[in-house]
């Protein structure tokens, strides 16, 4: 399956991976995040108090829901903020900051009636302020401001306007009806009195590192070691959460993080190194809870490159790479070879497209069919031009597994006479090269 996305084509996705470890205490967290009344929380049988100390591979770039673009940040901002609507564990839309809503018959106007019992986390030395329609308008405006750096902007371009009807009613008008429109309004609301700059939000604004929200947990502080400490919001509108404190501890090394778990230094990790799975699974103190990450890694080709514009060349590259072997060797078999940009658990996964198998001989035949012959240096060439490609990989996602994948990719392709020059680049520089300059031949990304 080939899907055009931006300037390059997504060739067959290579593999899905990830598994997680949760301590039993983490179950309590998820339960308390479900929409329940205060009374239910107090009598739900879960113990009160205590803290959860979990490990993250890396540090969050920011803690607000607008400028953050990594999972570490998003996990924290989920605890600090709320949206107009929420999505529960069954993927059902449930009321959150909006207690109810109306949708016009033409599906163009959404009117949200806001809860009147929600307050913002108190700023130091201040009383908590009430959450109102002004905060919703403010969030939309700052999110859509051209100078705000956020991945959300493009996702909300379908909104024509956001209007305050009264202090607790907002009306959103869409440019066109959209699929699953209501679910889109699960974006997190930030306070009007939060950011220093009221027009746009950048990573320089103190708010992104010390945010206040309406959620079950409040940011207490970030230690010198980068530990993010959250404490229970006593005034949370659904009732105080069970845990007193949540601490997110960053690790620069996945192995050390796993060791910390096994030596009781932390309670939970959210990403397990595949090679640690057998040890963790065999440890009765730990509960291994795999989930479908719905994420995938892929090699994408720049079809602006005339060599790669030839479908046979792209197919040859796919036939030459033993993805099953890579999955088994580097990710302990934790994943699936897929044929497109959707996980097999998605309704959109195309079952008619089977991933291409590993057939290096077929790869060579395809290249020969495309007019390539092997040169003296063992590299395929056509019309005097070598089949030498630049592979760019964002360094932000660099990990032991990714490095091995890149090396293996080079080796597999070397065997059919395709030279791959790998280059790890800082995330923003990678984005600029790929999306703006189109200066790449192949990318490996997730």
């Amino acid at each position, binding site marked *: 399956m080939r899907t055009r996305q931006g300037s390059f084509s997504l060739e067959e996705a290579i593999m899905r991976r990830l598994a997680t470890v949760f301590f039993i205490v983490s179950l309590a967290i998820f339960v308390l995040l479900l929409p329940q009344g205060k009374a239910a929380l107090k009598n739900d049988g879960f113990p009160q108090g205590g803290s959860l100390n979990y490990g993250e591979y890396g540090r969050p770039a920011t803690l607000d829901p607008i400028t953050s673009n990594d999972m570490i940040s998003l996990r924290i901002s989920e605890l600090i903020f709320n949206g107009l609507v929420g999505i529960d564990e069954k993927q059902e839309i449930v009321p959150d900051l909006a207690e109810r809503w109306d949708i016009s018959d033409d599906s163009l106007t959404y009117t949200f009636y806001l809860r009147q019992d929600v307050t913002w986390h108190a700023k130091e030395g201040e009383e908590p302020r009430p959450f109102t329609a002004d905060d919703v308008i403010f969030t939309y405006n700052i999110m859509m401001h051209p100078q705000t750096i956020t991945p959300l902007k493009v996702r909300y371009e379908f909104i024509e306007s956001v209007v305050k009807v009264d202090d607790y009613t907002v009306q959103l008008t869409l440019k066109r009806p959209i699929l699953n429109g209501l*679910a889109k309004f699960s974006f997190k609301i930030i306070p009007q009195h939060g950011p220093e700059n009221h027009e746009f939000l950048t990573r320089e604004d103190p708010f992104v590192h010390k945010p206040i929200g309406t959620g079950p947990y409040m940011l207490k502080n970030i230690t010198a070691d980068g530990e993010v400490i959250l404490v229970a919001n006593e005034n949370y509108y659904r009732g105080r959460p069970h845990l007193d404190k949540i601490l997110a501890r960053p690790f620069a090394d996945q192995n050390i993080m796993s060791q910390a778990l096994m030596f009781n230094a932390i309670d939970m990790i959210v990403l397990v190194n595949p090679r640690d799975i057998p040890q963790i*699974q065999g440890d009765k103190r730990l509960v291994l809870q795999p989930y479908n990450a719905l994420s995938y890694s892929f090699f994408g080709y720049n079809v602006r490159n005339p060599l790669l514009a030839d479908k046979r060349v792209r197919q040859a590259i796919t036939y030459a790479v033993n993805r099953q072997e890579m999955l088994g060797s580097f990710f302990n078999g*934790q994943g699936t070879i897929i044929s497109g940009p959707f996980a097999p658990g998605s*309704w959109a996964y195309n*079952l008619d497209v089977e991933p291409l198998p590993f057939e290096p001989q077929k790869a060579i035949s395809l290249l020969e069919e495309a007019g390539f012959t092997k040169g003296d240096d063992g590299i395929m060439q056509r019309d005097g031009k070598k089949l030498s490609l630049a592979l760019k990989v964002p360094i932000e996602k660099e990990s032991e597994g990714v490095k091995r994948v890149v090396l293996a990719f080079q080796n597999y392709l070397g065997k059919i006479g395709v030279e791959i020059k790998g280059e790890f680049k800082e995330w923003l520089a990678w984005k600029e090269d790929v999306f703006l300059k189109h200066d790449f031949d192949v990318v490996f990304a997730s």
Partner: protein
Amino acid sequence: MPRCCLVALVLEASLSAAADPIREGMQSYNRHHYEDASTTLLAHMRLAEPSQQGKLYLGLGMTFLACAQVYQELHRTALSVQVDYLSKLLASDKEDGSHYAKLYLGRSLLDTGKTAEAAVSLRTCIEDKKIEPRDRSLAKIALARAYYLQGKNKNADELWSSVDTTDPEVMSELAAAYSRLGLAERKPLAMGEQIRQVMKQIQQGLSIRLANNLITVYAREGQIDKGLRLIKSTDLSGFFHEETIGKNKIVRFYDPSLLDNLAVLYGRASLEYLEKATTDEKIKGVAQYYLAEAEARFGHIDQSIEILDDALASGLLPSPYREKAELLHGVARFWQSGGRQSQMHLEDSTGQQQEPHLLADTLLACNRLNLECSEIARKATTLVEVIDGKKLETLHYALGRYYLRTHEYEQAIACMETVRDKSNKNKIEYNDPLMLINLAEAYYRSKRFSEALEIYFGMRNQFPAVRQIQVSMQGVYAMEQKSAGDAKLF
């Protein structure tokens, strides 16, 4: 899983001198690669020494029985998912929507036993001029089957005689209908052979519909080997019809009856091969146990009891099989009595023991036979609470299956997840496919579609006919999907 343990015991005894192909086949069986197992064992059949024949028959019988069980479970899920999907599709597209959804819904309703509802749906198809004449004939044949099941034989005959049997697809549908209703006097097998001749003459391959109908006939008319060969040459993941709606919407229709036909064919194959295996004195006891299980599984309770009586009296059953045979005997008698015996009597007949595997077998049998078994479930629940879960895999699965039947989906999921291999959660090599199928259904019922679809995706290589469920479930998921579901490149 205990079944693997028992298989290992059989092999210990029977494979010490066995040739490699049998070992290889049974290794595939233990990994739940039943297609691979049957291919290996069947290929060896022609070359095997006479002394190996019995073991081959036993291996094939066990493999086909396992296959039949998988397809039986898949069919149960597929029918309900198909009905959910098509009902939703029809409800969402009232104007200019699908015309063929009514046809496939009617057929599926008929297979669930809802003849009156099926008839309503099928009648509208017959009158719908936007449906091709051939497909309206299919609707007539199905409607006639509904009438026949309602005892309206005259109406059925009128409809059957009104269809154009010069069209091989229509004729095959008619043959399949006769076979399913046990109307052997209408010669469905001869009709099937005639169709194959025609297709050969016009040098056309068999469509999935033709193949499905022929499998129906072969399975029910005792042409097992022909049926097995046809399965091997058919793409079981194919769709039955493609409908274009408006300018660019395409709906593909699949048919869960394929799964039922596979279950019946493999079931009959298991009976045939296990029957042959019982002629080998060395393995007779074990073969009799599996034969009795297969007979019971396919509703032949009297035969099952007769075989078990003989096996238990002969003293040929190795120890673990004796206990299982006694249990099966008790359950079969309970079933034979039409459930008139009390549940306590069932427990008495199974020895009132607390042995987890036997308790699990009792619970599974009760589930299968739809018997009330809350007391047994209570006993099983008590047991799983006090013993380490890993030692009680089958009992957890049996309880999960029980909770699925009682619509307690979260408990069903919890039970089955306890015994799921977390490192290889969707791989059939590490998890019993029967458990995975039931877990997938529990997830589906809980609207956690993604989990269910992942399971089917993992099964597709060994059980390609699972596509008959996948697409319908994707359809339900797409219509139920409430979250944004948009992709983001981090």
